[in-house]
């Protein structure tokens, strides 16, 4: 199993890219806000390593030749949602990391859910070659489930497969008949 894991140089590359993306996301998130969100580097690092360990485990179990075959970005998107919600690397230090000042959904957990969904959609956009957006109701449903329900990684992979198929074809016949 050790041999199938992503190596140190790759983890370093992915961490730096992830950090840059999270940094820009924080800038956008903080626009016009009095309380600023920022990145806890250690928590982000733990999330990045866990994401790629999960991708490697998925490959080792499901692919006939996991060394040569590549995982597609849908797996990265799903495992990123799982681990970003678990480690919650976006924090509000000036709030003393306190959540729920105004409402249960108005704090760290919501910021991390939004970042997790943005990161997932961004991977699906690159994967499909389409800068699609989810509708408001779908955003609400996903955020709600991330905050209050349980979404397994397998269900996220299936959901992201369906969304990707719809984004590529623009046709429901790619999913149902």
């Amino acid at each position, binding site marked *: 199993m*050790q*041999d*199938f*894991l*992503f*190596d*140190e140089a*790759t*983890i*370093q590359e*992915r*961490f*730096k*890219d992830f*950090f*840059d*993306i999270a*940094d*820009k*996301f924080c800038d*956008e*998130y*903080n*626009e016009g806000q*009095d*309380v*600023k969100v*920022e*990145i806890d*580097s*250690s928590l*982000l*690092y*733990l999330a990045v*390593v866990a994401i790629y360990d999960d*991708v490697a485990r998925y*490959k080792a179990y499901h692919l006939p030749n996991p*060394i040569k075959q*590549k*995982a*597609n*970005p849908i*797996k*990265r998107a799903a495992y990123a949602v799982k681990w970003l919600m678990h480690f919650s690397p976006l924090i509000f230090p000036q709030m003393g990391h306190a959540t729920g000042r105004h*409402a249960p*959904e108005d704090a760290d957990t919501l910021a991390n859910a*939004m970042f997790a969904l*943005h*990161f997932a959609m*961004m991977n699906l956009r*690159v*994967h499909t070659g389409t*800068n699609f*957006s989810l509708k*408001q*109701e779908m*955003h*609400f449903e996903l*955020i709600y489930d991330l905050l*209050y329900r349980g979404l397994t990684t397998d269900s996220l992979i299936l959901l992201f497969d369906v969304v990707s198929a719809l984004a590529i074809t623009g046709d429901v016949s790619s999913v149902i008949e």
Partner: protein
Amino acid sequence: MTETRTRMTASEAYAAVSQQDGLLYHIAHARKENSSDDYDGDALKRVSAETASSDISRMREASKLFRDRSIPRG
């Protein structure tokens, strides 16, 4: 008063989490072989820059629905 946030570059952040005497060092270091995936970091950063603002606006609008839906959907 509007707060400012701590600034750090990606390289500084990685240096901070990968110090050999740190608790996190062992997690991803000294791996010899590697796995791979379909990855284009530059494309991810470009698409993120293009869509982050719109995504955040859309998700903030969606999150307002929490205030109208105190009873979870069944």
